[in-house]
């Protein structure tokens, strides 16, 4: 039997092209090449499958040109005629995860080729695509590559062969919302009582119906009179005073910073920079107003369009930062903003 033909999608980083300075790398087809994590997949496939080509695309390029990048990559996949398409794994890289989810679900839907990706459960690509394409749950950094490949390779082979796919907890993919009817050995009443007894005894138990987490916050009323409003700037783009006095980490930030901008009318290359390690810092370092628009806000303040620009701004680095951390920082920031009489917030993200 001939080997299953696989096309693999990776970003500029895993293709060894470069980091953020190369994130605007357009989609590129490399027939016959096995690149980076593709080697681990090939090894795990053994005699059953092989990678016949790799597609590389920069994360920023993909996300800023979603339609074109998707169309171009679909065309490349079509030319190589694989039996299976694998994207990533993307771990906790947000733009990479969104790219993997987008392209894997597009290949599956538009070309009818079974597809698989993998990422960390907090990656934004999960909420967007987990219901559209199989997504293996991985660790949050590339240190989890071996574990990811070990789970992805067998599932990928099953998909390519059209074999039945078991439940998410057996196969290791992120629950996709599909429910399958089957007969349990024990009846419901007994299972419920067993679960209750475990709960009462403080032991671990697994619910059969996890409650969906609908965490939406209703919009607050609009600002009535801008000319009297005190507006604050907050950013996840890592803008800090030059030298990064609080040592905010370039990824997985453990803190946020509060910075006084009293009298500051313009952020310059000499005074401010970015601490963010998840995008090309050249533009923000040259002029941080491109991320945190202090110059324009000062003009609007002077012209009386807004009442006042709050004299403190808040910044953290939203690069691989845990959702729980971001939540805690923002709750504390909001408390301070309210205590200072701020009426509304402009939050910028990169």
């Amino acid at each position, binding site marked *: 039997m001939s080997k299953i033909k696989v096309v693999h999608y990776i970003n500029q980083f895993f293709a060894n092209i470069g980091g*953020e300075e190369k*994130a605007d790398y357009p989609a590129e087809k490399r027939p016959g090449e096995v690149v980076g994590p593709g080697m681990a997949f090939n090894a795990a496939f053994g005699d059953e499958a092989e990678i016949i080509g790799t597609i590389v695309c920069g994360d*920023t390029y993909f*996300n*800023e040109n979603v339609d074109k990048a998707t169309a171009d990559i679909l065309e490349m996949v079509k030319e190589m005629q694989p039996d299976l398409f694998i994207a990533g794994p993307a771990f906790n890289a*947000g*733009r990479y995860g*969104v790219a993997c989810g987008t392209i894997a679900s597009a290949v599956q839907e538009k070309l009818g080729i079974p597809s698989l990706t993998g990422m960390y459960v907090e990656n*934004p690509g999960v*909420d*967007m695509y987990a219901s559209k394409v199989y997504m293996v749950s991985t660790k949050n950094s590339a240190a989890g590559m071996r574990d990811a490949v070990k789970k992805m390779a067998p599932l990928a082979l099953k998909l390519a062969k059209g074999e039945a796919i078991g439940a998410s907890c057996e196969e290791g993919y992120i629950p996709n919302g599909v429910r399958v009817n089957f007969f349990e050995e024990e009846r419901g009443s007994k299972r419920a009582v067993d679960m209750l007894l475990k709960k009462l005894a403080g032991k671990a138990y697994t619910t059969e119906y996890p409650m969906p987490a609908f*965490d*939406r*916050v209703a*919009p*607050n*009323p*609009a*600002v009535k009179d*801008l000319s009297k*409003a005190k*507006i604050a700037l*907050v950013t996840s*783009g890592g803008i800090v005073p030059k030298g990064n006095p609080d040592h905010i980490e370039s990824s997985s930030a453990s803190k946020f910073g509060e910075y006084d901008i009293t009298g500051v009318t313009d952020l310059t290359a000499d005074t401010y920079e970015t601490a963010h390690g998840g*995008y*090309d*810092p050249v*533009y*923000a370092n*040259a002029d941080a*107003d*491109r*991320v*945190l*628009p202090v*110059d*324009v806000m000062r003009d*609007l303040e002077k012209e009386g*369009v807004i009442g006042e620009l709050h004299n403190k701004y808040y910044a*953290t680095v*939203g690069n691989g930062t845990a959702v729980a951390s*971001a*939540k805690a*920082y*923002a*709750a504390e*920031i*909001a*408390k301070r*903003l*309210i205590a200072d009489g*701020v*009426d*509304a*917030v*402009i*939050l*910028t*993200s*990169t």
Partner: protein
Amino acid sequence: MVKEIERAGLPVVHICTVTPISMTVGANRIVPAIAIPHPLGNPALNHEEEKKLRRKLVEKALRALTTEVEDQTIFED
């Protein structure tokens, strides 16, 4: 972060390039930005034009803050 600030009771507008992520994290007022590494700028323009572009985006964000919304809204224009 946007959602937690909103939860605390402050109206907040999110300026970001990848708006689907903003929708996923639950921002209510969203203004699409220019590009990931320079959301409120464009290094291809001269300083004056670039500042004008930034001002337009900030004005759009302020308009979003003064607009009542009932649901997640992307302010395209």
